[in-house]
């Protein structure tokens, strides 16, 4: 049945519009290779061919025509993955409706965003370009690769990555819709009902299509139900095609969504921010839900007041697959440092801490077979550091995406803008004020009752 519906459906998986992006060949020689899944290998080489890791070993022969990088004394780790960001997209929130499952950030990729380069300069090779948290059911998100330098948005899509969608609980959807417009949800009770209603309607929708598809060949009088891109997307969640990434803070609401998912048979669930995840870590582990958290953000609004910087450690120790994310164009530049904080707050081992920004976010995005560790057959996404990446003194030296060097500290051209305003003499001075709740980008001011400072 799914197949039949899909036949008339748009699939938002990339269309590989303009042919394949170039994939690179490169040999990284003699580094301290942090594989994540297979320990740390001293004085080891990593060979990438046609964008894939083909060999990891000592004293590899350089295939002719392959670029060599000397990583002696350097740390070589998998490219860092950010499971929650809003860089490289032009629209974050379609805040007009509590349910906007059909919108897709992948339709608004901005390859010109300078934040991509700045993320690369922090070793980050992939990120999850998410819809915001204005709506209980926000939009679908895109997993991107940081191919800064290409003008074509298609080149940034991680082809083959599973579809994901942003949900949101608590204050943000309550503020935008309940307080802002006087429509549900205004409470956490209301938020639950938004989900139950949406999924129930999606079930009815699926059934109607199933009926139509079953009889359309035999009954010439059968007419198709009204097509709804929104309900279809929700149906795709029910059938397991789309991973839910849910903006959440409080323990009660986290439990609520797990209950809803249980009732509707949904299994693929990652909680985002999830500041009080530590309180329900056993429940998260039992459900198989994962958690993508801040290293230490708290207290910027009431629902994050009872947080602890030990969140990631408690979750990890309780068997929850956990990642550290940025949700910020600033933090994404030093996720390796954010991960390091779990060693102060909870004594995670080096490998546990680095897993938070590599293999674990890869699992949450459903791409752990492709990225997140240095293994033969995986994508050639690599970050090279001077100093151990968890040290505060570490300096990213080179970042490679699909075998292509996208950042090299020795060849940093300073001005890396891709889009230059021909009528502006000097790029304007712009002091970025630290802003929390980047998930609320694009939401009109009338819905933001708080002002930081």
């Amino acid at each position, binding site marked *: 049945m799914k197949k039949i519906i899909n036949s*008339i*459906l*748009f699939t938002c998986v990339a*269309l590989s*519009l*303009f042919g394949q992006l170039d994939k690179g060949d490169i040999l990284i020689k003699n580094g301290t290779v942090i594989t994540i899944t297979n320990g740390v290998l001293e004085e080891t080489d990593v060979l990438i061919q046609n964008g894939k890791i083909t060999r990891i070993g000592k004293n590899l022969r350089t295939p002719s025509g392959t670029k060599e990088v000397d990583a002696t004394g350097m740390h070589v780790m998998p490219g860092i993955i950010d499971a929650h960001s809003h860089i490289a997209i*032009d*629209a974050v*929130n*379609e*805040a*007009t*409706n*509590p*349910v*906007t499952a*059909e*919108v*897709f*950030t992948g*339709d*608004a*990729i*901005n*390859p*010109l965003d300078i934040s991509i380069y700045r993320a690369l300069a922090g070793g980050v090779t992939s990120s999850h370009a998410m*819809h915001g948290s204005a709506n209980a059911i926000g*939009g679908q998100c895109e997993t991107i690769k940081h191919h800064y330098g290409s*003008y*074509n*948005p*298609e080149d940034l899509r991680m082809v083959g990555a599973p579809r994901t969608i942003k949900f949101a609980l608590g204050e943000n959807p309550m503020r935008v819709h309940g307080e802002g*417009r006087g*429509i549900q949800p205004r409470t956490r009770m209301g938020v639950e009902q938004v989900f139950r209603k949406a999924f129930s309607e999606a079930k009815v929708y699926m059934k109607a299509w199933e009926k139509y598809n079953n009889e359309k060949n035999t009954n*010439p*009088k059968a*007419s*198709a139900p*009204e*097509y*709804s*891109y*929104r309900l279809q997307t929700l149906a795709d969640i029910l059938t397991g095609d789309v991973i839910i990434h849910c903006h959440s803070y409080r323990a009660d609401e986290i439990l609520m969504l797990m209950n809803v998912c249980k009732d509707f048979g949904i299994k693929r669930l990652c909680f985002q921010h999830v500041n009080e995840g530590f309180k329900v870590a056993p429940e998260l582990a039992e459900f198989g839900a994962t958690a993508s958290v801040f290293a230490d953000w708290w207290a910027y609004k009431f629902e994050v007041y009872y947080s602890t910087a030990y969140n990631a450690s408690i979750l990890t120790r309780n068997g929850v697959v956990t990642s550290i994310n940025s949700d910020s164009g600033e933090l994404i530049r030093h996720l390796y440092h954010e991960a390091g904080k779990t060693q102060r707050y909870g004594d995670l081992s080096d490998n546990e801490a680095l897993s938070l920004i590599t293999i674990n976010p890869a699992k949450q995005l459903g791409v752990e077979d492709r990225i997140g560790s240095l293994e033969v057959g995986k994508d050639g996404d690599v970050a090279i550091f001077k100093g151990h990446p968890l040290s505060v003194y570490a300096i990213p030296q080179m970042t490679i995406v699909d075998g292509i060097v996208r950042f090299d500290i020795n060849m940093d051209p*300073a*001005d890396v*803008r891709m*889009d*230059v*305003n*021909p*009528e*502006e*003499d*000097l*790029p304007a001075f712009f002091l970025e004020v630290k802003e929390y709740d980047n998930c609320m980008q*694009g939401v*009109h001011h009338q819905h933001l009752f708080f002002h930081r400072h």
Partner: protein
Amino acid sequence: MKKHPTLFGLICLLVIPSFLWAQTNNDELRPVTRTYALTQANIVTEPGKMIEGATIVIKDGLISAIGKNVKIPIDAQVLKADSMYIYAGFIEGLSHTGIPKAEAQSGRGGRGGGPQAPQVKDPGSPPNDLAGITPEKNLAASLKPSDKSIADMRKLGFTAANVVPNGQMLPGQGALVLLHGDNADKMILKDQTAFFSQLVGARRMYPATVIAVIAKWRELYRQAELAQAHEKAYKKSPGGMSRPSYDPVLQAFYPVINKEQSVFMKASDIKSAYRALSLQKEFDLPMVIAELKQGWHVADELSKRDIPVLLSMDLPEDKKGKGGKKGGKKGDAKKEEAKKEDPFKAEREALEKRKMKALKEHWTQAGNMEKAGVIFGFSTLDVKSKDVKANLRKMIENGLSEDAALAALTTTPAKMLGVSDMLGTVAAGKIANLVVTDQPYFEEKSNVRYVFVEGNKFEFEAKKPAKKSDHNAKVVVAGKWTYSFEAMGQNMDGILELVDNDGDISGSITNTAMGNKSTIETAELNGNELSFSIKIDGGGQTVMIEYNLVIEGDNMEGTVSAGQFGTFDLEGERIGTPNK
């Protein structure tokens, strides 16, 4: 004293009831004949082809004959076109010409300028018309024959335009409009020429963002496919089948689905261009990408996929080159002295270089499209009419061939719009849309002398050099003058009465629209230069209006400045001697 509205308020008042002016045209002289013969002209019949010293005959709105030895009909008005150049009338590939500006601002573009967003009860599912989804909307309702933009574009040689309504995501249907006439319906040469779309959201209601606009596009397209299939089946045999619902929005998609009508997608910047291309690919849409400004990155792709485009005629200017030191207003006052020891000189130079490169990329876009083999015309959604010719020249200076430029103005849009048998070239039997210039059109000093729109003649003076001020000249200022100027797209006129008491100038000025008289102040005559000002008082705010004029015999010209509202060109003529 009577309170006057501010000039701005006045202009706002003027914008709306402009039909009042249309009425005054009743006593305009009608042409005696609609048959014309232009003789001894250089006729550029199509890009790259010219007949020298030929005659062209226009009759009943059509080109009836072209050649060196054609017979001139007896009823023809003969226009000596010796050494003039005749081209097919230009076609705007996509434009808002003839659509009043007030409506034009209802889009998202102007921050704060447009009207307030309409209030809806549920911004999550607003009615289609408020959400900017009116693909079924016909153009005629929005077209205003007296809109000044029609004359502005015609003056440049444009005789037809593929006009689309303003709006957001799906503003409505385009129509090919002849740029002359007083009846919107009759001006339309061809209807349903474009399914106009923009990646522009509605204001504070769904779809508000580009992601929702694209999602909505997908949904409507799929719904329309199903609706069309349902309708077909129902028509064949309605018995026992549920009735298809009437939905004009979906019905408007059918010609696109059936590839009978192209989507004209406005996509100026490079990101929009790629988004448009993605959508095109996804549904294999018949598509023209319009108002393209950063197309150089996709030139090869467009060529490979045979997707026609309409390049924007709007080009960025080199602000520094134009305004002198204007560029340095970055808060670095006293920059000059600091410059010597500026440790960031290299940085500034590099930034300047990148800016110049970006400018060059815009300027060379058309030439590069030509080289890449892309099919292109021009659209005029964003350009100001006064910049059109200079921008065309800039494109040519930067690599666009004149033939390709002419093709983009004539044959290509004609083909794109399916009217090649009517427009686009100078050939017997075609509609007499022509532009006649005193030098080749793309020469800097060329002047458009005649424009014909369906055989209707519009004549223009060669641009005369501006009157020179001369502080030693002696002129008589006293007398009664009429004056007129255009402010924000509307004509303002009135009477200026000047009295000269041995060099002491005084007088008054009226304004037809305001129906009042103001006393002129601080009048000063310096040679042939006259300056004065008036004050108008609007709601407690005094607005000073300054006039700077040059007088030559019984003519005057110059400028009128109304502070922040702008400076406008004024012309005047003496209509009576003063009563001493």
